[in-house]
Structure formats: structure tokens, C-alpha cells
């Protein structure tokens, strides 16, 4: 065994912590996240000939996992929307302390985003992929990823009442947007 090139198993093992984080942040449910990661590992193992050692294992695994997730979604239908309803309802109490949000507030806000926007934000902001890599993972245009990330960021800033790069305060218009999204 060579010293520098890890075996397939070693590379897979090294990618697992980040893959688990992606699975949980995409699905929002620990039990489903575990299933997704296990299924991804089994699929990856059976397709390992199609993976080139030395290329981006993380991107390859994330691609398999998100495809598995969406195909399960299609089979399970409305179940997820119910979950999102719960998250949204809880969000109707805004962060209590001025300018400080805790992690629970942040996660609730994140799960009010549509799946495709949350996914794009996670790939860029948490997994650390570039726009180009994320576009390849999601099989869409680079511009689509950019626009999803941008919409996700704007929505989170509104929900969490934090200022973005433009450093705006809460004006009447965004107040209305926020109230409307709480009511949805």
C-alpha cells in the first residue's frame, strides 16, 4: 500500500464526519441522516470503480447522498412538509435577546428555507465547496447555485434580524416580509 495515496476505505472514512454533518443539516432529522449516510456508504462502495482515487471524494459522496435524499423525498411525499411546518411554527417567537441569536434559533430559521436553497447554502457555506463544485453536485447551472445561496442568505438575515454586508436596519418593508413569512 502506498504511503501518500489513501485506500478507498481510508478516503471514505476521512470524509464521513463532514458527510454526516451534511446529511443532518439537509434532512433535519438524526434518524434519517444516519440512514442516508449508511445508504450512501453502501452505494459508494458498490460503485467504487467509478471513483478516481486522488479526486474529490467529498464531492462524490455528497452527490450520492443528496440524490438518495431527493429520491426518498419523492417516495415519501408530504411527510417533510409537515416537519417544516413544525419548524416554522416554532419560529413565530423571534430571538428574545437583542442582536444575539442562539444556535437553536439559527437552525429553526435554516429549516424554513426550501430544500434547494438550504442545500446550496450548506454546500457553499458549511461544506466549503466552490460555486462550480456545488453546481456539479446539484447538476445545475452555476448561476442557479449563486441565486439560491443569495436568496437563502437574504431570507436568513430577515428571519434572524441580523444585518448582512449592506448593514441595513429593520425597515417597515422587511418587517412586513418577516411577518408574512411567519404567517405562512
Amino acid at each position: 500500500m502506498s504511503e501518500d495515496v489513501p485506500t478507498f476505505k481510508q478516503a471514505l472514512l476521512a470524509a464521513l464526519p463532514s458527510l454526516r454533518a451534511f446529511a443532518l443539516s439537509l434532512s433535519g432529522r438524526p434518524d434519517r441522516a444516519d440512514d442516508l449516510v449508511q445508504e450512501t456508504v453502501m452505494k459508494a462502495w458498490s460503485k467504487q470503480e467509478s471513483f478516481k482515487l486522488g479526486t474529490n471524494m467529498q464531492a462524490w459522496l455528497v452527490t450520492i447522498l443528496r440524490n438518495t435524499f431527493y429520491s426518498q423525498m419523492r417516495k415519501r411525499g408530504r411527510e417533510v412538509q409537515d416537519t417544516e411546518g413544525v419548524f416554522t411554527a416554532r419560529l413565530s417567537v423571534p430571538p428574545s435577546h437583542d442582536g444575539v441569536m442562539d444556535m437553536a434559533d439559527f437552525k429553526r430559521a435554516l429549516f424554513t428555507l426550501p430544500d434547494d436553497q438550504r442545500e446550496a447554502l450548506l454546500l457553499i457555506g458549511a461544506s466549503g465547496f466552490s460555486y462550480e463544485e456545488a453546481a456539479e453536485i446539484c447538476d445545475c447551472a452555476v448561476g442557479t447555485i449563486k441565486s439560491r445561496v443569495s436568496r437563502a442568505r437574504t431570507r436568513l438575515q430577515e428571519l434572524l434580524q441580523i444585518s448582512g454586508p449592506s448593514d441595513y436596519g429593520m425597515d417597515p418593508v422587511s418587517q412586513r416580509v418577516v411577518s408574512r413569512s411567519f404567517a405562512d
Partner: protein
Amino acid sequence: MGHISKNGKPPGDGSYPDMPRDEIGTRLRAMYAEVENEPIPAELLELLEKLDAAEKRDNQ
């Protein structure tokens, strides 16, 4: 070590080429770190060992 992605950055090297270092970015990374710092579940490690063992058996 060995694997470099197409944009030249090793995956998981802690750089975020397209994410500003603002509050949302910081929160996202902290959220991931919570999970990444957990030990990998034993079930998952066992699965990997089983797959590896089965493959070695088949190759003999």
C-alpha cells in the same frame, strides 16, 4: 494529502472560496462542527468493516 479538487483546493482544508466570513457563515460552520466533532457511530464503522471484509473475501 493526495486529493486535490479541480479548483486546486484540498477538500476540507477549512477554506470557503465562495462564502463571506459573516455571521451566517460562522453559524453554518459551527453547526457542522457540532456534528463533525462527534465520534463516528459504531454502526457505521461496522458497516464499513463488513463491506471491506466481504470484498477481501471475494477477491481471494
